[in-house]
């Protein structure tokens, strides 16, 4: 009886996920199909009428593409490292429940999540710090994200206290404990929150729009956004396949994270074996 149940469940489960993935994928497929379709159409067509790569050729043959792409990579990598440093430091301090001032720090961070100064004051502060029209604005501004910091702290909470105790007994400084115990124990947390930061840096255009007026500092997303929004600016000519290029641009933006995710997943799959770290 019990044995039979175990055999049925994985099949049902697999069927559920095949259906779910299928339902979620149909709308994505529509975009993919349209990106290869040289004919413009309206309707739920799920196969190109006239197959062609012109949409992608148009994007990748652009001589002005390499610079924004470079800027995207630089800001995403630098920003994610910066942001992970802040989040892990902050999260590590927030699990020191006995530390005087901890609650104050925690509330101070929580407060920034709820209250904000608004668009113009933020601009004025950045301007007075001479950060506008520099990549520092788009790297530093999103680096402290309290939401992610608290999630990180949540993961750190799960690290057994005995590990910290033994580290303290060994005479480790907080920084040494952080590097020897906290980081190795939190690969899944670093992978998932790092991914969240990387995605927000990669997809960022709001900060570019608001704080950078120098197009040579625009990232890939800003570049493709122009194509996706179907700009009506006068210099932009008709374009024979406006819709094709638009859909191709939507797909191109997603590609890096389609490739990256399966690699990160190995950190989510393995359960942590605490015994091993204890040794």
């Amino acid at each position: 009886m019990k044995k039979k149940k175990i055999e049925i469940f994985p099949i049902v489960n697999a069927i559920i996920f095949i259906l779910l993935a299928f339902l979620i994928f149909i709308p994505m497929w529509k975009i993919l199909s349209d990106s290869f379709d040289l004919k413009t159409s309206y309707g739920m067509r799920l196969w190109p009428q006239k197959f062609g790569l012109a949409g992608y050729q148009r994007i990748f043959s652009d001589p002005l593409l390499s610079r924004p792409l470079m800027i995207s990579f630089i800001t995403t990598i630098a920003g994610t490292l910066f942001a992970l440093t802040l989040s892990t430091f902050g999260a590590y301090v927030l699990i020191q429940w006995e530390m005087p001032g901890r609650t104050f720090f925690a509330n101070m961070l929580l407060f920034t999540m709820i209250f904000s100064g608004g668009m113009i004051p933020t601009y004025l502060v950045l301007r007075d710090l001479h950060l506008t029209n520099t990549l520092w604005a788009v790297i530093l501004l999103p680096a402290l994200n309290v939401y992610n910091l608290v999630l990180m702290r949540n993961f750190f909470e799960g690290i057994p206290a005995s590990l910290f105790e033994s580290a303290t007994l060994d005479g480790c400084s907080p920084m040494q404990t952080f590097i020897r115990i906290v980081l190795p124990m939190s690969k899944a947390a670093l992978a998932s929150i790092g991914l969240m930061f990387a995605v927000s840096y990669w997809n960022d255009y709001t900060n570019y729009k608001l704080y950078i007026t120098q197009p040579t500092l625009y990232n890939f997303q800003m570049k493709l956004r122009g194509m996706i929004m179907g700009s009506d600016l006068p210099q932009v000519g008709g374009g024979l396949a406006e819709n094709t290029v638009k859909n191709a641009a939507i797909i191109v933006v997603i590609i890096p994270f389609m490739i990256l995710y399966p690699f990160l997943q190995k950190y989510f799959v393995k359960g942590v074996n605490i015994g091993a770290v204890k040794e």
Partner: protein
Amino acid sequence: MKNNKNQSAKPAVKSGKSVGARIYRYRGFYLMFLPVFVFAIVFFYLPMFGIRFAFTNYNGIKAPDIVWFDNFKKAFSMPGFWSAVVNTLQISVIRLLLTTIFAVVVSILLNEIVNIYFKKVVQTIIYLPHFLSWVVTASLFSLILAPTGQGLVNSFLVNIGVLDSNSMIYFLGDSKWWRFSFYLIGIWKETGWQTVIFMATLAGINTELYEAASIDGAGRWGKMRYITFPALQNTILTVLILNLAKIMNLFESAFVLQNDAVLDVANVLETYIYYQTFNSGAIPNYGYTTAVGLFKSIIGMILVLICNHLSKKVREGRGIV
């Protein structure tokens, strides 16, 4: 098992020492918090001088003109304001609960998949919609849900005989169906992304627990119920409460999916303010929008304080932060 988890979170240091001694003991941690502190001050607290604009009329040109609570009075006296507040609370709370429940169920079930390649493919597919902008999502779904032969859902319903072709449902243009469609699109777009954080939490479960449970004779459901779900509990609570803080900020998704015919059920506070300023044909009064922003923050704070208080009961005296 539950105890095991909680034990791990108990303070390592014995309290009762003098504050001075404790400060000295934690000196290294203060240093580590310094960068976070500086960032918070510079990028969040310095711009907060702007909050005072809420009590002024300010158009960004002349010096702000102090009007105290006039902006709040104006907002509170508009009939559209309160209905927008109620809409916002209803829509975002229900959407938050739905997407979270969905993401948790999907995560737990995903965790049961043994074939690693199948798991990877499924995970990757379901997280892709997160990368579409809301504008693109809206135009995609206005097509999928269109009340014509080209609308995928309606033509499916006609084909299986649920509807006839003269009574197709205008999912996004009918007040009766709009919210349902809105939640569905939200689930479609964000479920996969939310599972990222839950899957990472599940990865942190000590494998020994499952082994021990197997020895104790626990079945699949027993393990899910007594190990997997409790492990997620903390993260679920945190995600829910953190999102409550921002609950009044609902804008883009509602904005791109709404239209003139469904405003009675779809107009949320941010879109209401947007129309109020954009449609007025005048330069926005920055003081007014700041006042509304402050009102939203206060509601967010109240919600967070209440939930934090409740969460302490579950988390043995600790709040979510």
